[in-house]
């Protein structure tokens, strides 16, 4: 029978072929119990978590949990309304104040998810006749924001400063320009040369939006991200971020110094036409963000974990997404989806969870085992992880 679902037939077939090999479905794992930011019970087995975005391990922080419980008691389970109507509580203002302080910026606007922050800001500020110039490896939420708006969308090759500059120079005189970049690209864990790219963007009269979802809390002297690390944060017009990674809950935001930024609260549809975050969520986010301002020791330990895992996996013979560790993401390149899924399953049986990433999420059609480290992973756990990878890689023939 042919109907609207027929277009999904190739994917359905690919999936059933993969599962027919007897491999555990990598996309329907359930965590039965979460023991800590780094350990859970998955499929009945104690498992080290190396595929979460819990970079700073804030999800079980006692102060964060206490703040959430207090907010549940004081403000109830949800707001049942839009930010612009009945959905702005004291906690929403408080978390926006925490963000302004964290980034040292004048304005902060909190969305219900990070996806909506990109969707809302990009589709609203770049309109008909404007041009969006963006990296081809941008996150789905950036692409969807482009698609939702009416601007002309012009991609350039990943991290290619020359390709970006050529496209900026070809834009018709007088058209509005927005350059969209990410600090850390989450598939390979590589960072952008933001300082050079932002200079080129500014020289060509463009505004700049940087998604720092995977760097917040960790990269930069104060955890403000790659732009802070490279000394160009003051040239970024809009920083997009999320609460669902280092902050350890859910939600998204944009911070900016633009003098007219507050008007976004009235014109940005993904902000207006959805319910605001529950009080407990903004309370946990606010407490977590304030603690992240002072988490220098945790940042140092996470960098150490990243360096040790990168070296350990490289020495074991794995092909990695970057030559040097550039973030808390270490990406292990698999030869194809079948062997990637087999390796993923072998790791799970060893008691290690990583992300299996495949096209279209990955660049260049790659299958990746993506490892994201946590500041709460102990040095011993990292050594255990390297041992698990080595055994599973040998058993599946990924390494010789």
């Amino acid at each position, binding site marked *: 029978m042919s109907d609207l679902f027929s277009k999904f037939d190739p994917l359905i077939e690919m999936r059933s072929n993969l599962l027919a090999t007897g491999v555990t479905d990598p996309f329907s794992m359930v965590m039965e119990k979460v023991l800590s930011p780094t350990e859970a019970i998955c499929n009945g087995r104690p498992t080290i978590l190396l595929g979460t975005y819990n970079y700073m391990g804030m999800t079980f922080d006692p102060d964060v949990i206490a703040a959430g419980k207090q907010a549940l008691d004081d403000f109830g389970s949800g707001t049942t309304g839009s930010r612009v109507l009945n959905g702005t509580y004291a906690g929403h203002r408080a978390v926006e104040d925490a963000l302004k302080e964290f980034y040292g910026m004048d304005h902060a606007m909190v969305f219900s998810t990070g996806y909506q922050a990109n969707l809302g800001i990009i589709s609203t500020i770049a309109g008909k006749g404007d*041009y969006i110039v963006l990296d*081809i490896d941008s996150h789905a939420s950036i692409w969807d924001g*482009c698609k939702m708006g009416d601007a*002309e*969308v*012009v*991609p*350039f*090759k990943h991290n290619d400063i020359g*390709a970006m500059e*050529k*496209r900026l120079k*070809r*834009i018709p005189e007088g058209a509005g320009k927005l350059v969209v970049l990410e600090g850390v690209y989450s598939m390979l864990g590589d960072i952008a040369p933001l300082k050079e790219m932002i200079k080129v963007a500014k020289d060509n009269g463009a505004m700049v939006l940087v998604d720092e979802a995977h760097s917040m809390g960790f990269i930069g002297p104060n955890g403000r991200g790659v732009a802070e690390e490279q000394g160009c944060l003051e040239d970024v017009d809009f920083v997009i971020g999320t609460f669902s990674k280092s902050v350890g809950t859910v939600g998204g935001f944009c911070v900016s110094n633009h003098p007219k930024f507050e008007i976004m609260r009235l014109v940005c549809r993904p902000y207006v036409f959805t319910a605001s975050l529950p009080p407990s969520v903004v309370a946990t986010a606010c407490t977590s963000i304030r603690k992240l301002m002072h988490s220098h020791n945790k940042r140092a330990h996470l960098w150490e974990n990243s360096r040790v895992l990168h070296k350990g996996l490289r020495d074991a013979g794995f092909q990695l997404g970057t030559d040097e560790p550039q973030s808390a993401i270490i990406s292990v390149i698999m030869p194809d989806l079948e062997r990637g899924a087999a390796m993923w399953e072998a790791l799970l049986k060893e008691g290690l969870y990583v992300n299996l990433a495949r096209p*279209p999420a990955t660049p*260049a*059609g790659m299958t990746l085992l993506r490892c994201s480290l946590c500041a709460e992973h102990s040095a011993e756990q990292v050594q255990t992880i390297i041992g698990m990878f080595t055994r599973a890689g040998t058993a599946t023939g990924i390494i010789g």
Partner: protein
Amino acid sequence: MDRAATEAKIAALIEPFNKKGVAISDATTFAGDLEFDSLTVMDFVAAIEDEFDIIISMNQQAEIETWGQLVDAVVKLQG
């Protein structure tokens, strides 16, 4: 540049991407006949953009399915 000259230039650019040597006419489709995936499209579009010093935005690319439509679009974009 007239249509014939534009087409000849694009024909030279597509050669490295036309790995199976598919015979090209105005009705040849990129997704169907040439089996271009999104990465190939990006590299091919970038080559055309650099050759003619133009922008073919994603919005414009969405309207281009065949060889004939591409040549017409590039002729038009050169002004």
